[in-house]
């Protein structure tokens, strides 16, 4: 692999800098909360700085190639190396993880959820950041696996300690599901390793050799990986951990989970499962497509049935990730482009929606949709931001959500050669129905929450007044949200910004299918 840049320290520094921050935080006394927060935020901003440096040094004309490649010995006995690199698919997600961490920290500045303990909370976010960024740059399966698992424990504690009423159940469910998936995934990785001659865990090497594995073995190995990644996405029927985890997680946890962690699964499909095992990918594609459209419809119907705002957003994630998986399952460059764009867009939009849900919860102390009303009157700015995000989420053209959803549906019209057109066109129609349902549940949500008059209990008229604490968007929220809102708009108006770096990389992924 050609090394395009000498700045190959950038990725490693960007990934491990947060851990340095954690180390510094260990030596700050627990009582000094401001210092703790400051160190954490400075670390996150510095990490983002390294990320932006990476962006400026990135060679956009060669977005399809791995850049900033660094490779050294790690576990030579196991033939595993420390091998990192970044291309057009990784770059947006890598940066997204850094941006989200910074914004979540800004939001947390005066929003540390019960039961407090600022130090641990910020430390966990930094550890999460390392795991997320590392997963997107790893070019070695074992390294990938380590980073992929590194996010588990911090998220487990984040949900379990700082979560809602039912947090212990939700956190354990989240953990067991993911762990089950990873265990099978690891066995699949090992099988892959031995089937390719037990020479290396490096992904480029395996992409070269993988196609040579017999069809049957490919299908089994893909199956193992499928479970691992599908749990993380989550795809129907492995999605049941998600509504619980999202509903119980603190706002910060939900945002990180929705914005970045779910993408680890889809990224795994795009980066590992499909390019390494092209034959099996073709066999599995219709089934993935089927589960994806079931997820779209099921998620949408689930949303219509929810009475809790956060749970509704969680179910909408199932539906949106269904579109992403549908795009991936077509195995076309059109569909993959849409999928990667969809990952970023979903990260921005759903992350934003969870932020709003968190702020609503903080003000009204409830997320029960039937008790909320008239937000536009009471908090016009918050109401309009919610409206903006709802529109983006349902795929309104001109906002980011559109470019993930619409092309994904279109791509199903003409799946890759060898896949049944009829099947995928049926999927396309079902997915299109899904967008109508999405518009339905999202607009209905907006209508119920934002329109009308504030309900008596929050309006400030009644005696059991809860309305006094209700104020519009505050400065920390503006700082945390403005970048996301801007990104949603910019990517919606000028999607080529992202597509032009994704596309060459997607071509690389699909080269195993002859273009």
């Amino acid at each position, binding site marked *: 692999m050609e090394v395009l840049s000498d700045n190959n320290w950038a990725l490693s520094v960007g990934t491990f800098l947060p851990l340095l921050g954690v180390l510094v935080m260990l030596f700050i006394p627990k009582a000094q909360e401001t210092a703790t927060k400051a160190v954490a935020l400075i670390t996150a901003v510095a990490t983002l700085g390294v990320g932006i440096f990476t962006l400026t040094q990135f060679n956009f004309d060669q977005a399809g190639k791995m850049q900033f490649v660094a490779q050294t*010995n*790690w576990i030579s*006995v*196991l033939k595993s190396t420390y091998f990192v690199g970044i291309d057009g698919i990784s770059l947006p997600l890598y940066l997204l993880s850094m941006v989200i961490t910074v914004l979540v920290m800004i939001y947390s500045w005066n929003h540390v959820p019960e039961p407090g303990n600022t130090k641990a909370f910020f430390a966990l976010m930094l550890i999460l950041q390392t795991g997320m960024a590392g997963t997107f740059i790893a070019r070695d399966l074992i390294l990938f696996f*380590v980073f992929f698992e590194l996010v588990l424990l911090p998220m487990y504690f984040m949900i379990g300690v700082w979560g809602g009423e039912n947090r*212990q159940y939700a956190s354990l469910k989240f953990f067991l599901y993911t*762990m089950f998936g990873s265990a099978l995934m690891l066995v699949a990785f*090992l099988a892959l390793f*031995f089937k390719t001659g037990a020479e290396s865990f490096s992904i480029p090497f395996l992409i070269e050799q993988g196609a040579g594995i017999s069809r049957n073995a490919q299908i089994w190995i893909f199956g193992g990986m499928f479970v691992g990644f599908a749990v993380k996405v989550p795809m129907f029927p492995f999605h049941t951990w998600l509504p619980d985890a999202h509903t119980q997680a603190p706002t910060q946890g939900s945002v990180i989970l929705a914005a970045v962690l779910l993408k680890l699964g889809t990224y795994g499909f795009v980066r590992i499962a499909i390019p390494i095992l092209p034959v099996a990918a073709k066999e599995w594609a219709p089934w993935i497509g089927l589960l994806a459209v079931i997820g779209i419809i099921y998620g949408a119907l689930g949303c219509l049935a929810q009475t809790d705002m956060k749970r509704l957003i969680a179910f909408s994630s199932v539906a949106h990730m269904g579109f992403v998986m549908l795009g991936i399952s077509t195995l076309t460059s059109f569909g993959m482009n849409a999928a990667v764009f969809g990952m970023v867009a979903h990260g921005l939009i759903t992350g934003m929606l969870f932020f709003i849900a968190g702020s609503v919860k903080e003000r009204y102390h409830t997320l029960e949709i039937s008790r909320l009303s008239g937000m536009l009157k009471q908090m016009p700015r918050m109401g309009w931001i919610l409206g903006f995000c709802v529109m983006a989420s349902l795929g309104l053209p001109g906002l980011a959500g559109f470019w993930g959803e619409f092309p994904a549906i279109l791509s199903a019209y003409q799946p890759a050669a060898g896949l049944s057109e009829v099947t995928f066109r049926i999927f396309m129609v079902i997915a299109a129905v899904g967008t109508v349902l999405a518009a339905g549940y999202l607009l209905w949500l907006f209508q119920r929450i934002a329109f009308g008059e504030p309900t008596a209990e929050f309006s400030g008229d009644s005696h059991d007044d809860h309305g006094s604490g209700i104020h519009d968007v505050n400065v920390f929220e503006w700082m945390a949200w403005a970048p996301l809102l801007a990104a949603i708009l910019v990517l919606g108006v000028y999607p080529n910004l992202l597509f032009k770096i994704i596309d060459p990389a997607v071509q690389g992924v699909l080269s195993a299918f002859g273009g």
Partner: protein
Amino acid sequence: MFAALFSVLAAAADWVSPTIDYHALAPEIILAGGIVLVLLLDLFTSENNKWMLGPVTGFTLLGAFIPVLTLALSDAGTRSLFDGRYVVDNFSLTMKGLFVLAGYLVVLLSSDYLREGDFYEGEYWVLMLSSLLGMVMMASSRDLVSIFVSLEFLSIPAYMMAAWRKRDLKSNEAGVKYFLLGVFASALMLYGMSLLYGISNSTLLTDIGTYVSGDMSAIRAVAVLFVVIGFAFKISAVPFHTWAPDTYEGAPTPVTAFLSVASKAAGFVALLTIVYVGFPNASEVWQPVFWILAALTMTVGNVMALRQTNIVRMLAFSSISQGGFILMPLAIAGEGDSAGAALRAVVTYLLVYAATNLGVFAVVIAVAHKTRSGSISSYGGLFSYAPGLAVIMTIFMASLAGIPPLGGWIGKFGSFQALVSAGTTWGYALAVIGAVNTVIAFGYYGNMMREMWMRPVPDGDTTPVVVPSALMVALGLTTFATLLLGILPGLVLHFGDLANLAGAFGG
């Protein structure tokens, strides 16, 4: 028969003393010297000077580690003593290092515990050193007689240590149970060994290796089976595990740590030597046995651990189930090229497991010092008043659960890798069973984390936990090792990369 006897006597006439490589035996000699020293010191010191016995034991162990290091660094390679009956190779040195360092950590765990509990001190240290000497000898033994002698040497002191809380019924029960089942296992094993001697007319493992092969007559199969089952007791593999929970619960906690790490590792060492050197050609007998033992041990250990409310009992079942994971690779160790991978997996797992499990017991001792309770619920809210201990315990629990990037995952990974490397259906099947068990195991490890982080303090008593300095050192060392082994596993895999046991497979 008399002719044979006479020929032996005749041979004895021109017996010459074997040349002894004192460098190779230095760890054993230092340990033996330490035993004598502690014994004498105990006799001639007054009651209020007995505190020095612990440090003396600790320094003896560190002293024994020095020749282990120099031997490992010397270029002489494998040293074979007494006609190949006592071999100092990389494998045995790695394991000796493990035993000596684990012993040192147990000294750190024990010293404050002994002083506060009003136990006999001098005798405890002497017995512990004796048991460790047995383990160190076990690592080098390549002969049925020396294996048996080492085994008894390491077991008999341990029986007494298990019953060290003299006035406590549970501790007495622990000692008696351990003793009775241990003796029963020894008897089984001896029976197997006598059959082996009958088959091969030799007690040397390499000789036995040439006889136990090819045509696997019933008697050979029975011999192999009995020896393997005898050691299965030692490593508390299901269904020969019944002594472990009671013994672990009743014994003083540092002794439990000692049994669950060092004694278990010694059982595995003996098993590895016998299987690799003695039965390399009988894999069709022992592979299925290990397959069943591993699958049962993992599953039963896990399922039972889920139900425990006492931390030490939970750890007892956890250590049983970990034993199952360690056994896994042996189920395919006879397949083609997988022998090396399996050996490496077992050794790596033992090293990682030792570091983590000793750390867990260090935390248990530290916390019990304050709460005076062994129930899991006494860990409620530990994070709120002892965040350091809670974080360290979380690291250990996550390591035992096999979550990267902590030490335990590299052990599990190695086991899976070895299994999959065989490429057989049985290998894959066991790997999947192992994968499912990894998830079940998180049920109880995760429960511990939940207690510490998410549950309220049981009686509202949030006085901080006072950790004695010796325990602090033990905690620091084990945490450091657990993290380091997970992030840079190359360090320990290097020790496990033994290619093969010296003398194994006729080599």
